[in-house]
């Protein structure tokens, strides 16, 4: 009872006037409306048995301007140094977002192509392997879309739906007046089982490893299962690309992640994907085993052993180590 009295007494002092505080986030808050942050990483590998090579492959920087409760302007720049061969700085994302509700959010500008599971969280600072899945490395689906996107989600007693639909300009220098459109729908059941599908109709992008110009119709199907309170994660994604004037291409990966504790995980992935770069029917395969250690909220580390081959070659092996810093 006396504690109740203490609380009552304190109640007069702790009232509406004592405001709640924002939880601290990584990055820097500039005034009330602007948040900036980013990350960079270090990479060391002995790719394909060559000499050990180390470099800074990524520096990302973002600025998030909250115009109002529902409207924000987000921009992200990146300097990307592919395989240590030289860097380029480019605008990754720049969009104006209007959040009507959890069920409907609009984005206008350049955003990540909302497709499947891997691309949703493709940044090296967030993923659980050093090497991307082969189907992502081939860039059959363009990384970004310039246009307008509607997305959102809904929840009921059974599970939750998420959707995204967008119209974008084709990212092809020779056919840049072509519009493209796509949609992704997924359903999560019991917060454990997620199934989804993505469709995209577009002109082949300049960034793709596929050298042929022409229309593409891509289906991506995916599934994810989380077991034992997120200790185990099983995931698979499969892509099928219908190529105008050429044979179809397809690819898939499957992975198993074991979250040993909050800081340490092991991840194994198997890849099997068409390689259409040369025009010959070549298939690529890869096994990737990764150990990750995320000791703090600003430092992340991974070490990885990979083994990969083209259908006409023998297996090649690689070690790589990665260190990421969030600022």
């Amino acid at each position: 009872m006396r504690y109740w009295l203490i609380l009552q007494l304190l109640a007069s002092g702790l009232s509406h006037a004592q405001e709640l505080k924002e939880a601290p986030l990584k990055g820097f808050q500039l005034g009330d409306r602007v948040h900036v942050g980013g990350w960079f990483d270090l990479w060391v590998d002995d790719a394909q048995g060559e000499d050990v090579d180390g470099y800074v492959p990524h520096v990302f920087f973002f600025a998030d301007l909250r115009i109002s409760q529902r409207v924000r302007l987000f921009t992200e720049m990146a300097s990307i140094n592919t395989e240590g061969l030289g860097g380029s700085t480019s605008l990754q994302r720049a969009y104006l977002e209007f959040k009507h509700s959890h069920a409907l959010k609009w984005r206008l500008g350049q955003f990540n192509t909302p497709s499947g599971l891997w691309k949703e969280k493709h940044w090296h600072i967030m993923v659980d392997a050093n090497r991307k899945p082969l189907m992502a490395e081939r860039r059959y689906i363009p990384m970004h879309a310039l246009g307008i996107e509607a997305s959102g989600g809904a929840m009921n007693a059974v599970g939750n739906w998420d959707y995204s639909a967008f119209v974008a300009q084709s990212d092809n220098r020779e056919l840049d007046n072509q519009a493209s459109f796509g949609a992704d729908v997924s359903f999560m059941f019991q917060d454990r089982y997620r199934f989804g599908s993505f469709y995209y109709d577009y002109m082949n992008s300049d960034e793709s490893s596929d050298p042929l110009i022409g229309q593409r119709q891509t289906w991506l199907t995916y599934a994810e299962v989380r077991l034992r309170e997120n200790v185990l994660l099983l995931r698979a994604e499969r892509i099928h690309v219908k190529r105008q004037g050429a044979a179809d291409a397809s690819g898939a990966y499957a992975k198993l992640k074991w979250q040993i504790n909050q800081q340490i995980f092991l991840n194994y992935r198997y890849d099997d994907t068409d390689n259409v770069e040369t025009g010959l029917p070549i298939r690529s395969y890869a096994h990737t085993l990764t150990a990750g250690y995320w000791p703090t909220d600003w430092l992340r580390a991974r070490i990885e052993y990979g083994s990969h081959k083209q259908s006409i070659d023998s297996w090649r092996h690689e070690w790589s180590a990665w260190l990421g810093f969030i600022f």
Partner: protein
Amino acid sequence: MLMLALCLFLWQQGNDGFVVIAHRDFPAQSLTKRQLRHIFLKQISTIGKHPIYPIQYRSEESLQALFEAAILGKRFDAKAYWYEQQVQAGEKPPLLVQNEAHALIYIARNPGYIGFVPKGLSLEASKLGAKIIRVSDP
């Protein structure tokens, strides 16, 4: 002295579990763990037409860790989740209360708010007019 007494009392509550509390006008008497998870991950922002506002403690607080393990999962890394949300979607974590007393009083006085306090404060929460929310599996 009063603050000291309160701190001592709250310290005594220890890790005796938690109860979920909400403002008396909160539009639900009970929630499943799954619903709570979605509320505290800000994947639900309304129940019916009523806006809801989760509040939490600093991540270093033992009560916060207890809640996260029980509701979000033992291996769930809330800091990593909110970093991803921040970079991907501009979402921010729930606002912070300073301590259990602040949570009790803020929730009791502000419609739509939901949070959690040590189980030992259930009676005090009721006396302040807050609603105790029953939590069921899954």
